[in-house]
């Protein structure tokens, strides 16, 4: 799962070191239209629905946080 998430993130923003970055949202590293694209692709890839309540800096600030979010949402479905 982690590999696939990383692939999606890197496709959108090849310039970011997602393995080490921990302030993707609160540090204004990702733009809002990056998030739109990432959310759409994660929804498709993992057959989940990321809701507005999931769209928080805590869930999107790092690869680890994002992986946890997707595991949680996949479990719910």
């Amino acid at each position: 799962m982690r590999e696939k998430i990383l692939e999606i993130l890197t496709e959108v923003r090849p310039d970011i070191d997602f393995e080490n970055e921990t302030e993707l949202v609160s540090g204004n590293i990702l733009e809002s239209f990056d998030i739109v694209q990432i959310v759409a692709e994660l929804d498709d890839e993992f057959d989940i629905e990321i809701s507005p309540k999931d769209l928080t800096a805590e869930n999107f600030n790092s690869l680890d946080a994002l992986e946890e979010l997707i595991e949680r949402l996949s479990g719910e479905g």
Partner: protein
Amino acid sequence: MQSFKSKNIKNVLDLLEDAAGKYTVKTAYSDQERSISFEEVLLKARAVGTYLIKHNTGEGPVAVMLKRSVDTIVVFLGVVYSGHAYAPVGLDIPDERREKILKRLQPSFIINEAMLPGIFNERIDRTLLDEKRKDILMTDPLYVIFTSGSGGDPKGVITSHLSLLNYIEGYTGVMGIDSGDVMAAQSPLDYIAAIRDIYVPLFTGVEDVLVPKEFFMQPDVLFDLLNERRVSCVGWSTSAISILTKLKAFKDKKPEFLRKICFSGSVMNGAVLRQWQEELPDAVFVNQYGPTETTASCTYYKIDHPVEEDEIIPIGIPYPDYRVFLISEDDAPVKQGEEGEIAVAGAGVTLGYINDPERTAAAFTCNPLEKAFYERIYRTGDIGVFREDGLLMFHGRKDRQIKHMGHRVELDEIESAAAASGIERSAALYDADRENLWLFYEGEIDTRTLALSLREKLPGFMVPRKIKNMDALPLLPNGKTDFNTLKSMIH
């Protein structure tokens, strides 16, 4: 509302002093850290003005390189007290671009974060301020705001007090903003849309809440803030509204107090607007159109019916004291129903591009339809058509300029940045449906290296998120890039 003209307000300092007298301790601006009252804005701006009169002996605009906060707005107004125009220069742009901007601007002084405590501590000297003040004309430069220019060279649009006062008064009138409203600002302060966030409070006494950029990708967090601060009025970019919609913002929450919504910057999608109308049935929606060169805007359209999903929304009618008309390719009048270039005359036409006589002369011209006198106009390069009911419709561009995320982007500026990265042949395209910038290129450099190099040259929103390496770009028989074939590849 009484007009600024009848109140003898000739510049934004008169406006600020009028507001400070009327609204005193009411909050004018707030950010996540603090808020500042109208009176405090006045006092701090006067301190900034005094400091600058003492320390800046040069001619020309003052570059303001500060993060987005209430202090930055105070500094802008303080620069005006010192008798100079202010020029916001973003901190989040690549060094190369900032250097180009500063080279073009030739600032007399640069203000950065480290200087702020000293500047704000200056003792106000009313004699010095009054001395400067008496020389300011309402037609003098107020600010310089940079916008994308072709060939990779940003253009600094200079705007006068008069143009600004005229536009803000028109905008507050159309939106029906009064002192009971609360605004929420989305725009970066170095971008033209911020002039509403800065000056509408001074006109009307509303509080303006500066919303952090990252809240616009966290819809629940954003709507919580809007509800907590009882925000009733926003002027946001079309793309910010469209992104919130794509993120299904209304799923859990609603901005309960929001009643006045203006969107601008690019074409609004009917389906997006329809959803907002359904979610906020009591809100007024206004579509606004116009470039930085006509003081942010020149026309507006108050949406007076539930729009259809495929409806093309008019850009409408001119704001007061703007004349908006069409010119044909051979500089002749255009009949109703036919396409022409949108041209603008009146108080909103700005003073041109700073230190750039050539590009100024090309866009700010004498009206070719007015033979009797020299009427100065701005030619937008946008194509428009007047509908039978008199409303203006937007029909795209004459050139390769596009609007992305509310910002103007010259596609050849991206290709120039690719060329500066060692790519000889490239072609930039815009997929307006998905709001994606594409770059196709030939060459040995891999896409990641190219993306990194583009990031050193262009602001983030201009860096294509879709970059494709090709053995050879498709060509037309005349040797030019075949954009239609490339377009078909992205759909």
